[in-house]
Structure formats: structure tokens, C-alpha cells
């Protein structure tokens, strides 16, 4: 519990580090949603997504990510607190700001009996700011981008889960966007599809689009994110640049030496101040403040043959477990 409090106070410190006058793509202050059932789905969170960032919005199922996203997009009214998209207050500025925002919220939603293309046309017809003369071309471009052009004339209900997800992405890409809000974009996709979504996100970010991408699967999007925010039980536990994580959690080293050298190697590492556990020729220890290159150097200096050396950065999973004392897969 003390660990958790420490973590959340640091998290708010990091929020304070973001200058308040800086231009953010997404910002919230004390955003809270209490449903009529009394359940507090989102509990006073302060999000800050800098422009140009790929912000990984992580948390187990039921941690409040989707409700937060619904509040950002004006679908759900906050109980208290405020939200800004592209520096415009939501939901008041929705008509002006949402055309610049592409969104995928809690899975794709389309008319099952309309074709993929007809569904895109339907959404485009609803967009008061879209030019109808370019609608067909924009739909083609979006469909091609997600690899659905071949299936554009199939009714939506015949699509596989992955194709449905792609159509949702295509809808978000119908127009050039300054911000993409993608809620669980890799849901239902096979590993190949997941990879493609990662590539797409990277490509969009390189073109200058800010991406807020949520997931309950840590490994999936961790790799593309420049920033991370971790939610649990309605609270934002941690947020900041991707590198913040490296200072969190415990980095370990693993050294493999030749047989017969294990005992002397343990001695050398102890001298360096490491708390070593040995399993045959494999030694592991928490890194602590030691500069990693010193370790093999010291071993070689002592005449020990090193056959393997690895520095293990903390995984998101580890950090999460250390923050909450729970596994990442806990539902509420």
C-alpha cells in the first residue's frame, strides 16, 4: 500500500512536470465518472498526452480506460473534472474538434447488412465538415490503407473479427486527423494483424498524428509507445515518457559462466555489492546502482570465463505488479 501511494504521488509529480501552457493533444483535470449504480469508474485522473506522442493507455479490463475515452469523446458526461482535446474543452467544442479526431471505441460498430464501403459512406455522410465530392476517393484510400479493398463489397456481417477491426480503423482514417483515439485496436487480430496495426500506428505517428492507444495486453503496444499511462481501478497510477519505466521496477542481470567457475564468480559479484543467487553456472542478481559493463569486466579480470551476460530491464508487467501488488489480468 505504501508503495502504491508513493507511486501515485510520483505520478502526479510527473503530471506537474508538463507545463500547463504546453500544447497537449489530450489533457484532463480531475476527470471523474461515477455511474448511477454508485460505481466510480474513473477517479480523478489527470491525463497529459503531448502532441506527437504515441501514448499507451494501459490497464486491466475494467480499470476505467474505456469510460475515460468515452468522456474524452463526449459520449459520457463526467461527474466532475474537465477534459480538453487538442486544447479545446470537451464536450462543448465537440463539433469543432471531433472532425480532427479519429476514434475507435470499444470495438468496431457497423450495420451488419451494409457492405464495408457502404458503412464508410454512411459515416462520411454524417460528417458535416466532409466534402461529399471526395468521399469515394477518401474511402478507397482508407480501405486500402487497412488492406480491406478486396472485401469492400462484402456485407459487414460476413467479415471476420480482424476484418471488422480493420474497418473500424479505416473509418478513423477517412480524413486526415490530428489525433487518433484507438481503444483496444488489436482486439481480435491475429499476431500478423497486431503487427500491422503497430506498423500503422508508427507510420501515422511519423506523419505527425498524436495517437492515444489503449490496451489491456501489455506487450502488444508497449513497443510503439513514446509515452505510457497505467490505470488500475479507476486511477492513473503512472504516466510519463516510456523511459520512466526504466527507472521503475527492478533491473536484473544474469551472468552465465563456465562450469567450475560459479563459486568464484559469486565471490567476485559479491565484492561488487550484488546479492547473487546461483543456479548451477547461471547467476542472477538485482542490478542496483552498478554500471552494467563493470560486471563482465570484473569477472574476466578475475580469470573467469563468461559465456553469457544479459541486463534485463523491467517489463511493463513487472512494473505494474510492483505498483499495484496485483497481476495485470485482474478484472474488477
Amino acid at each position, binding site marked *: 500500500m505504501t508503495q502504491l501511494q508513493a507511486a501515485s504521488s510520483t505520478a502526479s509529480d510527473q503530471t506537474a512536470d508538463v507545463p500547463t501552457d504546453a500544447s497537449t493533444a489530450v489533457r484532463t483535470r480531475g476527470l471523474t465518472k461515477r455511474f448511477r449504480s454508485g460505481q466510480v469508474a474513473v477517479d480523478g485522473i489527470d491525463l497529459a498526452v503531448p502532441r506527437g506522442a504515441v501514448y499507451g493507455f494501459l490497464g486491466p479490463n475494467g480499470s476505467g480506460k474505456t469510460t475515460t475515452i*468515452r468522456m474524452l*469523446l463526449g459520449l*459520457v458526461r463526467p461527474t466532475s473534472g474537465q477534459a480538453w482535446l487538442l486544447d479545446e474543452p470537451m464536450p462543448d467544442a465537440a463539433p469543432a474538434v471531433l472532425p480532427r479526431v479519429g476514434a475507435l471505441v470499444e470495438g468496431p*460498430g*457497423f450495420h451488419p447488412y451494409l457492405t464495408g464501403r457502404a458503412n464508410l459512406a*454512411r459515416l462520411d455522410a*454524417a*460528417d458535416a465538415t466532409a466534402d461529399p465530392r471526395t468521399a469515394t476517393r477518401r474511402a478507397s484510400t482508407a480501405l486500402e490503407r487497412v488492406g480491406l479493398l478486396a472485401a469492400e463489397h462484402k456485407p459487414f456481417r460476413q467479415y471476420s473479427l480482424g476484418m471488422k477491426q480493420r474497418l473500424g480503423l479505416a473509418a478513423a482514417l477517412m480524413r486526415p486527423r490530428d489525433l487518433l483515439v484507438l481503444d483496444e485496436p488489436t482486439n481480435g487480430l491475429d499476431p500478423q494483424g497486431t503487427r500491422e496495426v503497430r506498423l500503422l500506428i508508427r507510420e501515422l505517428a511519423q506523419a505527425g498524428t498524436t495517437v492515444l492507444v489503449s490496451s489491456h495486453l501489455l506487450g502488444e503496444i508497449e513497443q510503439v509507445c513514446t509515452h505510457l499511462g497505467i490505470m488500475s481501478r479507476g486511477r492513473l497510477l503512472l504516466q510519463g515518457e516510456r523511459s520512466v519505466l526504466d527507472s521503475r521496477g527492478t533491473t536484473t542481470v544474469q551472468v552465465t559462466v563456465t562450469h567450475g567457475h560459479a563459486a568464484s564468480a559469486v565471490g567476485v559479484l559479491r565484492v561488487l555489492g550484488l546479492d547473487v543467487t546461483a543456479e548451477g553456472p547461471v547467476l542472477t542478481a538485482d542490478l542496483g546502482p552498478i554500471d552494467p559493463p563493470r560486471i563482465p569486466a570484473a569477472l574476466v579480470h578475475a580469470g573467469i570465463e563468461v559465456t553469457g551476460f544479459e541486463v534485463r530491464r523491467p517489463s511493463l508487467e513487472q512494473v505494474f505488479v510492483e505498483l499495484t501488488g496485483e497481476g495485470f489480468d485482474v478484472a474488477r
Partner: protein
Amino acid sequence: MSLVEAVPSRASSYWRLQRSELRLVLGRRRNLVLLVGLALVPLLLGLVLFFTQDTALSGQGPAFLSRVTGNGLFLVVASVFLCLPFLLPLTIGIASGDAIAGEAAAGTLRYLLTVPVGRSRLLLVKAVGALVFAAAAVASIAVVGLVAGAALFGVRDVTLLSGDTVPLAAGALRVLAVVVYVGLSLTGLVAVGLFFSTLTEVPVGAMAATVVVAIVSGVLDTIPSLHAIQPGLLTHHWLDFAEFLRLEPSWSVIGGGLAVQAAWVAIFGALAWSRFTTADVTS
């Protein structure tokens, strides 16, 4: 890009969405089946009356029914009369109950709202869509009734309920007035269905509730002790279309019937609006 993206005007963007909505409503197979089903009523009724006209069965049933064999125009009136208690409310219930709840159930509501479409505009587009479908339902009965009636029995000068006869053109105009009045009589139910549709994510629930309202209203209308409230009931004035078949239609009766519909539209339209523009969309 050489082609400058032009932002359409408010009106043209409204009509773009309205056209899309009408295509959605009128292009949907379920809705087309409904329209075809309603169109079968005058056809079947006409055929039944045609083949029984020289038997002992002829001349039985309500007044409009017995006149059909004498004048095909009355097939329109008789068909509308037969569809009013249940088939038309069912059709209206399906069209209006599906309006918002159907989008919520398909998951398309959240995407429409984040496009973004203003909630008031979306509700208006949905209301117009449901009203157009209601009009199409009445029109399909009327058109098939007219064609079948003319083909089976021919059309001639119209003998009114009073026994007076008016020329064919004037008679046809009166039948058209009957159809328009029936169409307008359904607007209150459309508003009720639209309101139910904003309450739920389960379209079938909204549809059923709408049909139940029409049926309950019809039942309450038959209970003598409820005399005081009956003039305000949704269905109380539905059969007043018969006014157009009197020599001197009572405009106060017709106006009263339409005023009751207008009141239901105003009340349930306002309820639907206040609900839909403030509701959390969690579907």
C-alpha cells in the same frame, strides 16, 4: 492536393445525412418485407371480396367492406381500416423503436456521435426517417388498394356514408384525404416510439413497448368509465377518417383529431429530445 476540400453548408450537410438515413430505412430488407406485407392486405382483401361477391357471404362486415364490390375506390378505405388496429401500429413500432436503439445495438451510435453528429440533428434525422417510413407504409396500402380495387371492381362515382353520391374526381379526393388523415394519425405513435428508442439499447424492447401503447390505448378507449380521458387517447380519433366520407365533413372533428396527434408529438418529441441530448452513451 489541387482540389480544395470545401466545407458544405449546414443545410446541404443535413440533407446528406437525411438521404443516407432514408436509404438505410427504405433499403433495409426487413423494412421492405414489412411494406410488401402491408401491400398484400388490399390485394388479398380484394381477391376475397371478388370471389365471394356472388355468394351468401357478400355484404357482411363493416360498412366500408360491403361497398368495395360496388366501387373499387372503397378497397383503399377498407384496407386502411383493417390495418389500423394492429398492422400499422406494428409497422410504426418497428420503424420508430429501431431509430436510436437500433443504432445503439449495432454499436453505430457511438461512431455517429463521434463523427460528430449533433444529437439534436441526429434525432431529427431519425424522426424524419421514421415518419417517411410511416408514410410509405400507408401509401403502399393505398396504392395497391387503388390498383387492385380498380382492376377487380372498377371505379365510379362515390356513394357516401349518407347515401349521397359525389362525382369520381371528388370521391377520389376524399379517399386521398382519408389516407392522408390516417398517415397523420400515426405521427403521435412515431413520437412515442422514438422516445422509447432513446431509453434502451434493445430495439425489440422499444418496438414492443410502442405497439403495446397503441393496443392499450385502444383498450382504454372501449372502457365506458374512462370517458373523461378518452378524447386525449392516442388512438381515440383514428377512425375519424370516416368524416371525409360524409357529405359535410366536420372540420372540428378532423381538426380535433389532428390536434391530439400534435400534442402527443410535442410531448413525446420533447421527452425524446431531453433524454437523448443528455444521456450517457455507453452502448
